[in-house]
């Protein structure tokens, strides 16, 4: 209001707007449906009304008496004599005539149609694709074939002196199977229209399946040997691990992580992988390492695995050793395991701190420093910042911020006694 004054605009325009708007709103609101539903359809009236709103309300003609009766009916499309009941709309006491309305969807072959079919078959030499094109009523190629072959078979059977005579005839021995044919053609067209990517995916899945079945066979061999591996954990891990050496391709190809295995201890997994490796006549060191790494991270989620790799990078270690000798691979594996332990401990610590801080916040009010732990976020993800003396700085920071539990029973320290935050000047 004052703004308008300052700008020097006339004051009346506001009230005019307010008045015109409610009118516009009610104009927009549609009849018969709520505003929200109307908005779903686009919020604007359709160009051409599909159904007149007036029509929806006044439908039943006044001169007709409509009643509904529960009557039996039969279906000409059915072979059995099933009698069912349904509600029937009676107009002025006269029930409707005619067959069950859905019977017409049962594809019936009239003699006329069949004769036409046979004529076309004769003139076009059983070329069904051409016949289907020329057929007066729309029938699929499979339907035409089915009709032709079943009629031909019936005729053959009727004309044959005995059933045994025709049992060798292809019409009888291999009858045309409509559903199978339809399905086959549908599958073919799907395969034909597959994109390259789908093809590749299918090939991958098949290769994976092949690998799994092969490894299952090796695992069965591993079971039969005298290795002391617990039965439920062993075969499953061996399944995952043992891949025959003739499909070994360590460096370039992508590892396919297999589905989750029943939980088992790390040592058991390791033992079974060693066992399955020994079953191979020859393998590459990198392959063995990959198997062991997979086993070690089998209990970890994808995010944890990524964090392990991130940590390795921060430590300046190659994710795949450049010189994978036996010793290097062993060290690498141990390092990975230790990092996993480290991450688990970190998580535990986080949880404990979260618990502790919520407890403390609830009962003791002012507790300096604790909430900041939880919002560290990115900081906490980086454990080893390159070139940083983390032993001094980061952990020191944590220690100073966090309070010992003993403090809970005491009043919060006055400011000058609280551990002071690390300042740049301290470094």
């Amino acid at each position, binding site marked *: 209001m004052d703004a308008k004054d300052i700008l020097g605009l006339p004051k009346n325009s506001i009230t005019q707007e307010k008045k015109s708007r409610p009118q516009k709103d009610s104009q927009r609101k549609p009849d018969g449906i709520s505003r929200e539903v109307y908005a779903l359809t686009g919020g604007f009236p359709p160009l051409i009304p599909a159904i007149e709103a007036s029509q929806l309300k006044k439908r039943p003609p006044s001169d007709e008496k409509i009643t509904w009766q529960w009557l039996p009916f039969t279906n000409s499309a059915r072979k059995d004599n099933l009698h069912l009941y349904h509600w029937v709309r009676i107009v002025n006491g006269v029930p409707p005539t005619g067959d069950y309305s859905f019977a017409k969807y049962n594809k019936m072959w009239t003699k006329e149609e069949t004769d036409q079919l046979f004529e076309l078959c004769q003139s076009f030499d059983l070329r069904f694709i051409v016949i289907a094109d020329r057929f007066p009523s729309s029938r699929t190629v499979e339907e035409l074939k089915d009709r032709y072959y079943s009629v031909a078979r019936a005729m053959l059977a009727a004309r044959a002196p005995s059933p045994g005579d025709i049992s060798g005839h292809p019409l009888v021995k291999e009858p045309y199977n409509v559903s199978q044919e339809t399905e086959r053609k549908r599958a073919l067209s799907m395969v034909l229209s597959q994109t390259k990517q789908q093809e590749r995916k299918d090939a991958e899945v098949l290769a994976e399946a092949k690998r799994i079945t092969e490894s299952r066979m090796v695992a069965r061999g591993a079971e039969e040997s005298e290795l002391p591996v617990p039965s439920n954990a062993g075969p499953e891990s061996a399944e995952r691990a043992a891949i025959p050496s003739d499909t*070994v391709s360590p*460096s370039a190809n992508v590892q396919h992580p297999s589905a989750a295995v029943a939980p088992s201890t790390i040592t058991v997994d390791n033992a079974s992988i060693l066992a399955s490796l020994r079953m191979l006549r020859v393998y590459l060191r990198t392959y*063995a390492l990959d198997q062991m790494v997979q086993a070690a991270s089998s209990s970890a989620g994808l995010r944890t695995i990524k964090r392990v790799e991130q940590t*390795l990078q921060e*430590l300046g270690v190659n994710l795949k050793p450049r*010189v994978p000798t036996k010793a*290097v691979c062993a060290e690498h594996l141990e390092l990975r395991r*230790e990092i996993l332990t*480290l991450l688990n401990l970190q998580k535990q610590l986080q949880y*404990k701190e979260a618990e502790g801080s919520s407890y403390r916040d609830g009962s003791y009010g002012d507790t300096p420093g604790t909430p900041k732990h939880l919002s560290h976020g990115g900081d906490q993800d980086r454990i080893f910042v390159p070139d940083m003396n983390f032993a001094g700085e980061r952990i020191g920071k944590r220690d100073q911020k966090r309070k010992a539990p003993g403090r809970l029973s005491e009043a919060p320290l006055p400011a000058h006694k609280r551990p002071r935050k690390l300042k740049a000047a301290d470094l």
Partner: protein
Amino acid sequence: MSLTTSSRKQGENQPDDGASAAKPPRIKIGKSSEESDKKGAHRRVKDVEICVPIVYGTIAFYLGRKASESQSHKWTVYVRGATNEDLGVVIKRVVFQLHPSFNNPTRVVESPPFELSECGWGEFEIGISLFFHNDICDKQLDLFHHLKLYPEDESGPQTTKKPVVVESYNEIVYPDPSENFLARVQNHPAVIVPRMPAGFNLPYPVSIESVNEREKGDTKDHPLSQWFMNFSEADELLKLAAARQQVQAHIVKLRRQLSVMDGPPPLLKQPTGYDYT
């Protein structure tokens, strides 16, 4: 350098002798074997792992003035011993699978040095299949290597003097070698064999058919040896050890922190006043 290439179809990797390596029983250490080498072929040595360190890769030279549109580089793909020793002691032949645009893309190399040279313009993945001698195993080992022709550093024109070298180190491991195999290779420089327990007797080493007639197959004096990369496990071991130390120290700290949080309140030296009655 000697190059032997032939376009034999892959798949002719059936063992020459009829002896298939059926699953043999484990032998006991200390059993002296004066049996014929046939038994030695079947008897396998438990807990002895034979290791053959190899390096495989490509070296590609830009042809410079002699380069044409379709042949801009000359490259060699090879498998060599990591210390440049003769791999013929374990490898019978190597099959290099090239891009289908090459004539006879399946190239078989029957004797060391296991290498193949070609000219071309394109980078692609080369399949390298290693086939071992009959007394070792009849399964092949497959490797893949991406042929790199163009240097990382794209600045400036390509030089014909310095090739683009990409090598990968790996080790072939035979977890349960046959006695014959072990006897044959235990003193060979290309093969790493762990110390045998005392009293272990192996059959007299039997040499394979073509070994004696072969020319030297090591790559120590190979024309391209000046470009071979060095793979020293020492560097990596050091780095790994340092990393492990860091992680272990961190773990110790965290464990301490956790125990402080979990455990009873720490001992406070302050007298509470209630202890003294």
